[in-house]
């Protein structure tokens, strides 16, 4: 998998930035040729993750870029990757945080686990005091 072209990096510091991240992911997903359902899924996942960055991470950044790769059958495919980074308090138990119903208390507990179900690749690294980084990829079919 390789990144193609310069992605966009935007700060997440306010409500309006969550909307901006959604619009960026939508534009990149459309350019990558994702169908409407896949596009809706990845934009929804990005919305959850951007809100997490804002609310739980105390703000951070999102980087959105096109990616190219190949399917298991060797066919070329394109997709969109979004990387969310914050320098917040971090998640003490990542495994627990990825369970449905786990919540810091302000939401429905579906943010992380729900977002993971909506994308093809999901990687979360976090440490107490060292912030959180979430990388998601959604491929076109």
């Amino acid at each position, binding site marked *: 998998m390789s990144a193609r072209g310069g992605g966009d990096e935007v700060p997440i510091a306010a409500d309006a930035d969550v*909307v901006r991240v959604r619009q960026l992911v939508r534009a990149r997903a459309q350019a990558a040729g994702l169908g409407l*359902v896949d596009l809706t899924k990845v934009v*929804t996942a990005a919305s*959850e993750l951007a809100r997490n960055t804002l609310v739980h991470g105390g703000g951070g950044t999102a980087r959105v870029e096109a990616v190219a790769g190949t399917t298991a059958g060797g066919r070329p495919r394109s997709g969109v990757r979004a990387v969310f980074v914050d320098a917040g308090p971090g998640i003490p138990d990542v495994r627990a945080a990825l369970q449905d119903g786990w919540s810091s208390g302000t939401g429905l507990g579906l*943010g992380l686990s729900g977002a993971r*179900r909506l994308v093809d690749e999901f990687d979360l690294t976090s440490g107490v005091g060292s912030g959180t980084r979430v990388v998601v990829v959604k491929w076109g079919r």
Partner: protein
Amino acid sequence: MDRVPVLRLGGLLLVSIQVDLEDSTALALQEDLSQAVVATGARGVLIDISGLEIVDSFVGRMLSTIAAVSRVLDAETVVVGMRPAVAITLVELGLDLAGVRTALDVERGMRVLGSTTAPRADGLPLAR
């Protein structure tokens, strides 16, 4: 911040969300609607989300809360116009919109509200 307009149509309140909702806009709509239900004595609330390209957990929770608050205030809520891709995504996300009635479009939604919402029995006019 944008504000979503709340329209009055007979004994119903009509909301059509046509903007990409910021969280604060969603919260403001929740408050505006509950105030409008009390101010107008409306028996039904119809929310058209055909303009929404996504419904994430925050907006889903807003819809559930609006329905619950309206019910406590003696009004029924129907959400109409959900796009198929949004419905698929909602279910996969794990949201079930508990307590929210839905209909495919505005016309069907009006019919649902028309059949469940009789005028208030106290005979008072709807507007103050």
